[in-house]
């Protein structure tokens, strides 16, 4: 047991790039293709004429630029996109998800990129990531955190429109 503890400590100290992905999403996407599910939900994401728009879609485009990745948009509904996300056939699903959604415990979620307050309900908006792809999710978290104020600004601008 003492031995296991030492190995664990050594592992923790040398592995400062934790967390990593069991399915390697981050390394696949970097310089490759990012498969993004889009659920139609104004003002967060819309899909029209082979192009996604909306607050979340814009953030995803910026993120893809950072990772030097092409985006493969996959439009659809919750009932088809989330099972595909769970099977690692998609890398990301956007479209107005909030932390309190019932499926939130079955997939990964990012930190909130925007907070809204409507009908006396505070909602924190997140992206859905494949389950257990913690390295990928954490990378996205860092991106979203770096662009947090901007995201809020865009949201307000959309709301005012």
């Amino acid at each position, binding site marked *: *047991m003492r031995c296991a503890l030492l190995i664990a400590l050594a*592992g*923790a100290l040398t*592995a400062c790039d934790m967390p*990593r992905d069991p399915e390697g999403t981050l390394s696949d996407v970097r310089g490759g293709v990012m498969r993004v599910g889009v659920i139609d939900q104004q003002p967060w994401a819309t899909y029209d004429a082979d192009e996604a728009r909306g607050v979340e879609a814009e953030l995803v485009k910026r993120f893809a630029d950072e990772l030097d990745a092409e985006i493969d948009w996959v439009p659809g509904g919750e009932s088809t996109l989330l099972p595909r996300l769970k099977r690692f056939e998609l890398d990301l699903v956007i479209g107005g998800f909030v932390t309190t959604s019932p499926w939130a415990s079955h997939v990964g979620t990012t930190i909130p990129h925007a907070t809204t307050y409507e009908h006396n309900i505070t909602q924190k908006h997140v992206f859905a990531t494949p*389950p257990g792809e913690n390295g990928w999710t954490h990378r996205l978290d860092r991106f979203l955190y770096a662009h947090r104020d901007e995201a809020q600004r865009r949201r307000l601008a959309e709301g005012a429109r």
Partner: protein
Amino acid sequence: MRRTGQYELPDDLKPMLRRAIVLEWVTIAYMLSVVVMLGLVIGSSQAMRTAWAEDILSLIPPIAFLIASRIRHRKPNERFPLGYHHAVSIAFLFAALALLALGLLLLIENAWKLIKAEHPSIGSVTWFGEPIWLGWLMLPVLAYSVIGPVVLGCLKIEPARKLHDKTIFADSQMNKADWMTGLAAGLGVIGVGLGWWWADAVAAVAISLSILHDGWRNTSAVIQDLMERQPYKVDHTQPEELPERMRDALNRMDWVEAADVRLREAGHVFFGEVYIVPRAGQDLIERARQVKRELGELDWRIHDLTVDFVGSLDEEGG
């Protein structure tokens, strides 16, 4: 019905009881803080959730002890002529069954997650202007959750032995074993960090097995206590030598032809019968008093003895 006398702990052990009570209160306070802190960083890690459940369960023995230590010193009365000493065992039976049931439940759940190959998501929180992976926060909290119980577990062994209290002993054993839970959960979290999705579920299975093991050991021990099997030492490893010492003391009395005893445990005290074949021409009432007095001085746990004079030790019944 005739009542047994009220039990009083010997004066030299009273500070030990007070120490035990303080230790159990400290345990409850510490474990509550652990439960709150773990709850804050739990994420969707199964190992963390299982360790959390174990920490909540570890509140039961101290609570059982504190409740029972109030009840068991109540005066024997018409309805309970033998007093309330079994209160401890009954409290402990429930605690042990809770451990057993939860251990089984968690084992099945975690094994199922392993079979389904569920990948645990451990997200990030924003602290001090930086998104931090929750796993990094889990590790120090786990370390905190381990240090207290291990220290407390070691501190409780002396009171448990001196007070012959099996609840405190079982509690101290669970506390001392807590470091394994913490280590398993920590390895699970680090494993997930390294990209091994199964590490979390494997750690959770290991922790459920340890809960199950605690539950099984304690249930079997407390059931044997309630079945009034021969008195055992507080760590359940071997029978008490007290019956032999009592027999020897009796055989040293020059008016005793032959003698035997039968003891049963009630919580931390002993009730029992003494069978004596006396030599002829004794004042038996005075002899019976002498036996109770002298045997009672052998050990503070001897609470209530019945002395029976028989023609031969082979007589049936009695």
